[in-house]
């Protein structure tokens, strides 16, 4: 039994012991996260290995969660008073670390967790300070780290009233979510005349994705006990209860151990630290009802009754457990108390915001790169937490929204990444702080589905007492289900809003009062997504399974029936495979080479190992037909229609429209300004990605169908729109693309030799122009696909050095990720966060590019940080050539005649939903309407436009004749892990020598092997079939 003085003195001794340089240790992270990741095997392996290595004196200890759960299992080697933390271990790696680090003295840097990374540096740890650092099962380590000194100081220096004043002054607010001032709560309870009062710690953490409290309980249980003892002293209670969910067995075990340890040392129990103050803590286990997190239900549960809320007033502080004054605080709130008592309210207030001082622990889950626990000052923005501290999204996916407050909360959409998080700001956004769960979502998350998930949770967890929560949540779920199954009506959204308001207003307790929040919040920020489900029966994230046959097809802008053609490949019917694709997308060969395969992002196989190589298989089908079957199948033209249609531009959109209109029987003529057919396919996309002769094979399908192609004819110059009208064309489809490079407007660029625009360079190259860029230093400005294409072309021209200069960070580059990877492989340097200012020249020849360094400012509406120039941060890049690739726009030459097709403010052609322009017989689509987009999106537009033109000309608008197909499994479904087959490519040296196609294509065996990885998500009743 200690007194205060003794505690202070042993603290010093223990501090020396546990911080002593000689105290080398191995520490294994044994939180639930660590154990789940395999820490127990690591521990066993380490023990064995230490023996084997003869390091028998080395202590092996455990610790709680360090917060970086993504890196579990974690092992720390504490030598020379330094911490070396190895992450992502398995027993084998752990043995290697021990041997290398301890025996050979070599630190394995690549396995080390960087303790100076933003993940740690940008955090401010108060309650998590000891988590992942001390052994939670050894009170000595707690004491060494100042544990119980807050209690000692409290008992020594302050009266209960003074304690309450300090907590009030510190403006500590409840971390359970509601943010009620803790000091005020204590004050009311302290005023009660009840002879017995209670302190209850609410450790019934039930939000999906929240694990803050668990980590504190597991990693630093004494901090909580100390906080509770101080609370008890302040309000005059001698009994405390920890209400912990039974699903936390490890936390309960460590709490029990901690209580025992503390009682043995006289830090809890009777006459604490010989001060005369008694405080005993009991643990009560919750049986897993979410509603028992609500304080009155929690009390009912401790009293042995059914966990149901009762009405307030009276509040628990007046009449709580067994009718006595009771303070209920959450784990994190109480865990802040010891530090406040030791360091004072002013210290606490210096952290965080004025209205919400201190820190908040967040549990990051979902599509986040570094999932785990972080503690940040109040007022930190979601952007900082998600992107700076946690490294952004998994697989660098695009951020869509983050859910705070769990099922009671709402989502923070991309436009609010800069909002400082505190109780009040989140409320304004329609969400709540909640206990600190932060679930990050990317574009693959369907917001209707998300709302469904949370309301389903609340529906199940409703105690069933009040009408609005019991029935209302079920009815909300049913309406959401209706919407997600494509049976929704527009009025359902209004009904959901009305129900949401009523359920919030009417419900008895916090559960019901907040249950509609996720629905209301997703409708608030993602109403268009609801409408898409209702009106178009489309789920953009490929989640709502009743709305599509397979997720890949759903994600494909051209709506290609992917599983079906993959199955044909597996069956060896390559022609059928081609035809299945062709029916929805006439540019099979092209897309097999250049498509950015949105389908693969949606592939369910990704959940097992890797998404299917859908593009590669498409390419295989077209290659096979060319090589082994003598060419592509020519679709049959329906009955001839004696109506002429002119298509201006032979890019993907024009070709597609021509294909479908001709198939319908129209007389179609394509007018192409250049000599080459294909638009950007021919002139923009480099030869090494899409060889021109192959492109022409596919264009040959169209000519074989009877499409007339007139080259070297620029509408507006060689022929006017009115001429087309006179020549008897019933309709015109403008698919002229966005062919003009946007001006960089950089100082020193005018008239200087060595300054080019990317499109010019790409076009010239594709038309056989020879550039002498050998051994030159080249700077390409921009971060899009045109910049990457240009840069990779330069490598092939033998440039000495190719640099890409981009304003934002590399992860923000709009270019396709695989292309960036290839470019870097080909030794293109990517300089991000540089803003070019001026071209320096000598003798009218470019010599240097002057740039400023840029840092990321606030997040803009695209979810990327705004580039903000750093003052006086000039960077000079030696360069001979500067190529600008900063975007394209429409060239307006077609308006040279009598008719004027109206443009938008962004210099794009203005169209209605049916692709018609201001002139009713002129339609437009593709890049000239949408701005630069992908090939497959242009194909989608061409197809839709063909349908609209058909309707305009009196047809039924059906351009794809859908066959009924029986979907059956033709071979075993491969459910065990199997990585995708890598696309074979040519060597780097070969790439540098010329424009040979980089990808070599699959062999037949490879194609069939890859095709057999398909899970056949399109077959709904797999079980029965198998």
């Amino acid at each position: 039994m200690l007194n205060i003085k003794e505690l202070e003195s042993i603290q010093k001794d223990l501090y020396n012991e546990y911080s002593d340089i000689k105290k080398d240790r191995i520490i294994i992270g044994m939180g639930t996260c660590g154990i789940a990741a395999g820490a127990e095997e690591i521990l066993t392996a380490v023990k064995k290995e230490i023996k084997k290595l003869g390091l028998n004196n080395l202590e092996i200890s455990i610790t709680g969660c360090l917060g970086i759960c993504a890196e579990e299992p974690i092992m720390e080697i504490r030598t020379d008073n330094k911490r070396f933390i190895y992450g992502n271990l398995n027993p084998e790696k752990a043995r290697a670390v021990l041997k290398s680090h301890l025996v050979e003295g070599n630190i394995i840097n690549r396995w080390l967790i960087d303790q100076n990374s933003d993940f740690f540096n940008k955090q401010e740890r108060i309650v998590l300070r000891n988590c992942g650092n001390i052994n939670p099962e050894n009170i000595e380590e707690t004491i060494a780290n100042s544990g119980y000194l807050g209690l000692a100081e409290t008992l020594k220096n302050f009266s209960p009233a003074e304690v309450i004043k300090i907590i009030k002054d510190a403006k500590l607010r409840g971390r359970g979510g509601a943010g009620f001032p803790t000091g005020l709560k204590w004050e009311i309870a302290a005023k009660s005349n009840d002879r017995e009062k209670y302190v209850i710690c609410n450790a019934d953490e039930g939000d999906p994705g929240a694990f803050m409290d668990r980590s504190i309980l597991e990693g630093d249980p004494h901090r909580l006990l100390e906080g509770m003892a101080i609370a008890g002293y302040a309000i005059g209670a001698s009994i405390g209860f920890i209400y912990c969910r039974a699903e936390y067995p490890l936390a309960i075990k460590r709490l029990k151990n901690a209580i025992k340890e503390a009682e043995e040392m006289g830090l809890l129990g009777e006459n604490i630290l010989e001060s005369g103050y008694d405080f005993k803590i009991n643990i009560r286990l919750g049986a897993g009802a979410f509603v028992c997190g609500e304080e009155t239900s929690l009390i009912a549960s401790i009293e042995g009754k059914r966990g149901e809320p009762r009405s307030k007033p009276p509040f628990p502080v007046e009449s709580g457990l067994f009718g006595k004054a009771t303070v209920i605080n959450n784990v994190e709130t109480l865990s802040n108390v010891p530090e406040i008592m030791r360091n004072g309210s002013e210290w606490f207030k210096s952290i965080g915001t004025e209205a919400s001082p201190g820190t908040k622990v967040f549990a990051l889950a979902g599509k986040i790169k570094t999932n785990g626990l972080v503690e940040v000052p109040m007022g930190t923005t979601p952007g900082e937490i998600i992107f700076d501290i946690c490294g952004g999204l998994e697989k660098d996916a695009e951020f869509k929204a983050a859910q705070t407050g769990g099922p009671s909360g709402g989502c923070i959409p991309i436009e609010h990444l800069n909002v400082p998080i505190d109780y009040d700001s989140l409320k304004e956004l329609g969400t709540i702080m909640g206990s600190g769960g932060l679930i990050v979502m990317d574009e693959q998350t369907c917001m209707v589905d998300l709302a469904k998930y949370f309301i389903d949770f609340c529906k199940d967890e409703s105690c069933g007492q009040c009408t609005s929560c019991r029935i209302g949540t079920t009815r909300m779920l049913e309406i959401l289900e209706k919407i997600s199954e494509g049976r929704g009506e527009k009025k359902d959204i209004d009904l959901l809003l009305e129900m949401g308001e009523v359920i919030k207003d009417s419900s008895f307790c916090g559960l019901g009062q907040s249950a509609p929040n996720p629905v209301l919040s997703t409708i608030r920020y993602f109403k268009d997504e609801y409408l898409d489900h209702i009106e178009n029966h489309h789920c953009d994230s490929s989640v709502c399974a009743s709305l599509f046959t397979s997720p890949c097809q759903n994600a494909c802008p051209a709506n290609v029936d992917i599983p079906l053609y993959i199955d044909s490949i597996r069956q060896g019917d390559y022609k059928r495979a081609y035809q299945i694709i062709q029916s929805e997308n006439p540019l099979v060969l092209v897309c097999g080479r250049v498509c950015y395969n949105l389908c693969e992002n949606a592939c369910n196989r990704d959940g097992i190992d890797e998404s299917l190589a859908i593009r590669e298989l498409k390419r295989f089908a077209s290659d096979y037909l060319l090589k082994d079957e003598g060419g592509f199948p020519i679709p049959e033209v329906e009955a001839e229609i004696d109506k002429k249609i002119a298509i201006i531009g032979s890019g993907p959109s024009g070709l597609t429209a021509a294909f479908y209109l001709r198939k319908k029987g129209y007389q179609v003529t394509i007018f192409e300004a250049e000599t080459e057919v294909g638009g950007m396919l021919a002139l923009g996309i480099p030869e090494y990605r899409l060889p021109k002769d192959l492109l022409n094979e596919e264009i040959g399908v169209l000519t074989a169908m009877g499409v007339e192609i007139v080259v070297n004819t620029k509408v507006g110059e060689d022929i006017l729109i009115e001429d087309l009208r006179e020549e008897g064309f019933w309709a015109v489809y403008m698919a002229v693309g966005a062919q003009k490079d946007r001006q960089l407007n950089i100082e020193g660029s005018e008239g200087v030799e060595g300054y080019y625009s990317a499109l010019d360079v790409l076009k010239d190259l594709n038309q056989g122009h020879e550039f002498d860029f050998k051994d030159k230093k080249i700077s390409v400005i921009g971060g899009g696909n045109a910049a990457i294409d240009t840069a990779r072309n330069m490598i092939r021209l033998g440039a000495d050095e190719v640099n890409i200069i981009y304003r934002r960070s590399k992860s923000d580059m709009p270019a396709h990720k695989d292309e960036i990877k290839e470019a870097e492989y080909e030794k293109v340097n990517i300089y991000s966060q540089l803003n070019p200012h001026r071209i320096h020249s000598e003798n009218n020849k470019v010599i240097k590019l002057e740039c400023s360094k840029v840092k990321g400012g606030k997040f803009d509406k695209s979810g990327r940080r705004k580039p903000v120039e750093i003052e006086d941060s000039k960077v000079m890049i030696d360069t001979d050539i500067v190529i600008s690739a900063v975007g394209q726009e429409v060239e307006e030459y077609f308006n040279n005649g009598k008719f004027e097709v109206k443009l938008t403010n962004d210099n794009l052609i203005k169209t209605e939903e049916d692709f018609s322009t201001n002139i009713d017989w002129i339609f437009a689509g593709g890049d000239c309407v949408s701005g630069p987009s992908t090939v497959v999106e242009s194909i989608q537009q061409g197809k839709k436009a063909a349908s609209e033109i058909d309707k305009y000309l009196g047809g039924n608008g059906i351009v794809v004749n859908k066959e009924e197909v029986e979907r059956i499994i033709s071979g075993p479904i491969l459910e065990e892990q199997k990585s995708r087959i890598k696309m074979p490519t040519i060597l780097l040296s070969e790439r540098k020598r010329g424009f040979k196609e980089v990808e070599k294509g699959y062999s037949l065996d490879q194609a069939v092997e890859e095709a057999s990885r398909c899970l056949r998500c399109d077959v709904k009743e797999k079980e029965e079939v198998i």
Partner: protein
Amino acid sequence: MENKLVNIEIDGENLEVEAGTSILDAAKMLNKNIPTLCYLEEKNLIGSCRICLVEIENTDKLAASCITPVSDGLKIKTNSSRVRKNRKMNLEFLLSDHNIECPSCISNESCELREIAEEFGVREVRFEGKKSSYKMDESTPSIFRDPEKCILCRRCESVCSDIQSVEAVQVFGRGFETVIKPSFYDNLADSPCVLCGQCTLVCPTGALREKEYINEVWQALDDPEKHVIVQTAPAVRVALSEAFSGKSGEICTEKMVTALRKLGFDKVFDTNFTADLTIIEEANELIERVEQGGKLPLFTSCSPGWINFIEEYYPDYLDNLSSCKSPQQMFGALAHSYYLDNAEVEEKDLVVVSIMPCTAKKFEAQRDEMAGDVDYVLTTRELAQMIKEAGFSFENLEDGNFDQLMGNSTGAAAIFASTGGVMEAAIRTAYEKITGEELKEVNIESVRGFDQIKKATVNIGGLEVKAAVAHGLSNARKVFEMIEEGEVFHFIEFMACPGGCLGGGGQPLFADKEVLNNRMKAIYEIDENKQIRKSHENPDIKKLYDNYLDHPGSELAHKLLHTEYQPKRF
């Protein structure tokens, strides 16, 4: 604190009211009726239905007025559009999970849900979707349970656990799956339910009601071969007219007799007759036990709900129970013996029907110990239903008189209907039997009224007889606690239902305190107006002993009028 007055404003009107008064009650003072569904004065204060919501200025949530106490300065809106919208949608929610079959529902006329939906003008339920699906529980002869009509107001749960301390029905499950059902058992018959039917009195819908035997009785009446006789319990005559006039406290004995005769009963007898008989036998038993050192205190045994309760919860005390059958069963036994001896009827043609204020009586009539004596038991409500169905105007019926032989009764029998009545009647007789002197003050006020437990000490011939009266089973439990703490009693009256039979589970619905009080007044009025007010002075009872039974406690009396009960185990 309790009496502190506070100023509040309701819909712009100022009111000074005691702090802690509920908003609902405060509004009543201003003649504002806030609609309620789950609320039940003093009995169910949980605020679960969310119909009585009101808006409190400067708070962002609505409050359930039935459970929210007023505090100084509160400004309340009881009729804002927000309030109406919430109430109406909650009602829509309830209706969306309700088995709506109003025209054929037993509660069609008495359904509070239907009534409130009409008040709110709910013309459409916008929600489709799943409905709770449960089997009907018809396991007992007394009460049925139809969870598909339950709106989870939980009045039954409160009444069963708080007032009756039986806890036979409780809420189970969570969320949409929440259901009221017998605790740990699948059906009521297996549960500790005592069948008192108090839950049927408070259920706002048709989820809990008495099991009807109307069709069976009609069938018997329509059968020319059958000789159908009927007995009417003391409490029926002071409540039956409520079903027709809506007024409480009316004594309608004579009209009831006429009605029964018109319905086709061959003889209309009175359970009051056997109530007098019960007193004779029970007083005799008490005297015997006192004089011969039998098991004391003696417990009354007229209330079948109480019998079920003691069998289940206090089987160790079964010996304290009077061996007397209840008046209903004494009547049944006599009908098959004494009556048959005096009538030209064959036993096989005899049908005995009782009109009872009680649901447990239906069970009692089917108990193994006594089965066959009474064929059908109808509640007061069922009788009213039959009269309505027959189509005659109850209020305009002429007066009629009970048939002779078993139709005459005393004031002592009349007060059986009220809590304390059996005790009072027994004392009137026991006193005179023991002392041989005339009891001057017939009214024994100390056992009258609605106090939960009433005690009286009566000096009978030098012996201080200690008596207690408990009504409502939670009060019965309290009496057992007193006994176990050593308090000495000689005679205790137990009634399962609060108020005694006048508050029985088979009585007309919507009986608030005032209605119960009026029924009680009417009971004592009947007693006051009787010339003979002591059971042993009933001339027909004397005749029964003289001509048939011989003497109280005789062998034949034992055979016909007494029984034994067994512990019921779970």
